[in-house]
């Protein structure tokens, strides 16, 4: 990493810090994808994985992917928002260090301690392993999550500090006045600031709630007589977990707002609808988590109804203004397509398409049939793998500017796109056929879906491998370069 010593103080090159984030992200994405492929191959009965180890792999894949989605999209957000507000590179790197410590603890909990209670660590499962893992392994997992949460908390608080010092309040940075016509839209904050404000509001609140439930779960591990209402714990865990993974998209989408205008030479125009969409989505992202509890009959009915209605609405405002904005920025712009622009464009498409099966699953009548099927990994892989990850890969390609060697990157793009589409469609079709999710062992009738999904996953991983490999090829020159034109 490039560092320059100035006036006795060590100044860290912010661009190098972003590249460090992306280097870690590229490696972890590939490793976690290989874990996912391992699960699909085991379900396809092409390899033999003991069921108890399957759940370790599933837990590590889930926790690892959620964590790295947060880290990589935070890199996107930080890189662009620092153009408009003062932020600390030291805090940014502190988050990376905390993340790596947390990742070591989590991987140790799984691959050494055998922890396999899924990334959602639903209370009181960590304390009831049936002899498969020790209390210390479960504690290692929970402490790892706390480390990661503390790192992200610091990062978001630092961005909040920068936003408050520039805009005065989070409401101003979110564009509340513009949203309600109280100030001209031209005077509104840049999209990167609005999106970062939404992300920090949601994640700080989510992390505070998550910290409380993690501490309670830790106490329960070592003093099992200290119990907690399991349904309350589930609410708190999903408030934290759903918000965290949901926000990754809203951080990564900044890549769309900032990268496409560079290639199309058109400004990303904001208007009152843009700001209103972000204000609404801020409210929705904080209240939508109850759609994870639609099958919990003990929940008050109004919360489930609210969960359904908010699920229908949650992603739509920002998605609509982003998709519409993307089309207007690109349409007849004379854009000469390159892998970076194509990847962020694909990200918007993957997000838009993935939301449709998600909305279906957010409907109580559908949810009661579909929620425990592969429909769910089908929809979230659509908007995460082909949405959020595509935006991050586009950002990686943009920073390392492969021009004029686009050919290799295009190969990676098409393998990733075709493989990814096959992979998610296999999940969705399996879900439509009621193939259950989170089963280590599949019956013969389910194998075609698993095998098609495995082939798709292999092709997609090959594409990501190429894109990540060419990122590493360009990383040295990218550290000292300007953003591409």
């Amino acid at each position, binding site marked *: 990493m490039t560092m320059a010593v100035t006036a006795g103080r060590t100044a860290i090159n912010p661009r190098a810090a972003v590249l460090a984030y992306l280097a870690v992200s590229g490696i972890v994405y590939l490793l976690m994808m290989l874990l996912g492929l391992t699960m699909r191959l085991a379900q396809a009965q092409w390899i033999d994985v003991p069921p108890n180890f399957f759940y370790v792999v599933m837990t590590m894949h889930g926790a690892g992917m959620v964590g790295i989605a947060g880290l990589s999209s935070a890199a996107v957000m930080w890189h662009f928002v620092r153009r408009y507000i003062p932020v600390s590179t030291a805090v940014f790197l502190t988050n990376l260090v905390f993340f790596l410590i947390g990742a070591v603890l989590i991987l140790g909990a799984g691959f050494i301690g055998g922890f396999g209670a899924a990334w959602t660590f639903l209370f009181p499962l960590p304390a009831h392993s049936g002899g498969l893992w020790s209390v210390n392994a479960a504690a290692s997992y929970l402490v790892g999550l706390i480390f990661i949460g503390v790192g992200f908390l610091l990062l978001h608080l630092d961005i909040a500090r920068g936003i*408050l010092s520039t805009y005065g309040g989070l409401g101003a940075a979110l564009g509340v006045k513009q949203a309600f016509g109280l100030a001209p839209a031209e005077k509104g904050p840049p999209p990167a600031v609005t999106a970062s404000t939404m992300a920090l509001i949601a994640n700080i609140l989510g992390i505070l709630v998550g910290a*409380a439930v993690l501490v309670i779960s830790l106490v329960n591990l070592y003093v099992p007589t200290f119990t*907690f209402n399991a349904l309350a714990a589930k609410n708190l865990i999903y408030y934290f977990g759903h918000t965290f993974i949901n926000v990754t998209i809203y951080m990564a989408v900044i890549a769309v707002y900032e990268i496409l205008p560079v290639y199309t030479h058109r400004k990303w125009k904001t208007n009152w609808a843009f700001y209103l969409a972000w204000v609404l989505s801020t409210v929705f992202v904080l209240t939508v988590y109850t759609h994870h509890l639609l099958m919990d009959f003990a929940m008050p009915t109004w919360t489930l109804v609210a969960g359904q209605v908010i699920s229908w609405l949650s992603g739509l405002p920002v998605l609509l203004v982003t998709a519409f904005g993307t089309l207007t920025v690109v349409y007849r712009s004379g854009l000469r397509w390159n892998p970076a622009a194509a990847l962020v464009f694909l990200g918007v498409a993957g997000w838009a398409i993935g939301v449709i099966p998600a909305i279906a699953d957010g409907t109580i009548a559908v949810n009661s049939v579909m929620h425990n099927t592969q429909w769910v990994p089908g929809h979230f892989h659509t908007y995460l793998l082909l949405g959020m990850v595509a935006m991050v890969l586009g950002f990686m390609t943009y920073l390392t500017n492969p021009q004029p060697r686009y050919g290799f990157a295009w190969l990676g793009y098409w393998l990733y796109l075709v493989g990814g589409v096959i992979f998610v469609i296999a999940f969705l079709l399996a879900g439509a056929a009621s193939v259950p999710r989170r089963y280590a062992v599949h019956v013969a009738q389910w194998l075609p879906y698993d095998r098609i999904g495995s082939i798709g996953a292999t092709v997609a991983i090959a594409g990501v491998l190429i894109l990540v490999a060419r990122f590493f090829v360009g990383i040295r020159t990218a550290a000292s370069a300007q953003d591409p034109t």
Partner: protein
Amino acid sequence: MSTRRLLVATCGSWLVLWLPAVRGGLERDMALHMAVQMPLLIALGALVAAATCRFEPRWLAAADWLGIAGIAAVVLGTSFWMVPRALDQAIADWRIDLVKFLTLPLLVGMPLGLSWRRMPPLGRAFIWANFIPKLGAVGGLYLGAPMRLCAYYRLDQQELAGWTLIAVAVALGITWFVAAFIGWTPSCGKRPSRPSVDGAGRQRALHASAA
């Protein structure tokens, strides 16, 4: 209010809180003990700090670099007096209660008042972000405890204390959020002009990246 009047009012309030009737009344209930009496004692110390910060010796300010030492004392002091056994001891023995009456203003409230302004905004925000879930988690543990944690308080009082701490955590979280949302941020000092709010910053960034 002048420094002298503030000090007199603070000492007077301390003495009122020490009066057996007031002390007994506030310590009779776990929720009042934790959520009213102890915060009041801390607030008295913070008031003394506000009144006397002008007279703070330079060496003390230098030793309390970025407010780290002072806030460490605050965290240790508040953590100690959250331990159920410490509450029991304070009720059982007036001398321990006197220790509480002295340590909370002097070792928690005063360091809080003196060190808080020295902390950078990120540090203050991080302290808040730690304190709020800690209160909530302790409240949750009081609710989840299968037995009485304090010999002097009944289970129902313990449960009420748990809910009270959770309510305080939620109220603090909402207040903190609303303050940041509307821009009531005394810790952030001046509000600079908004060079990048008008869209020109975005334009400049676009030009910079295109250059």
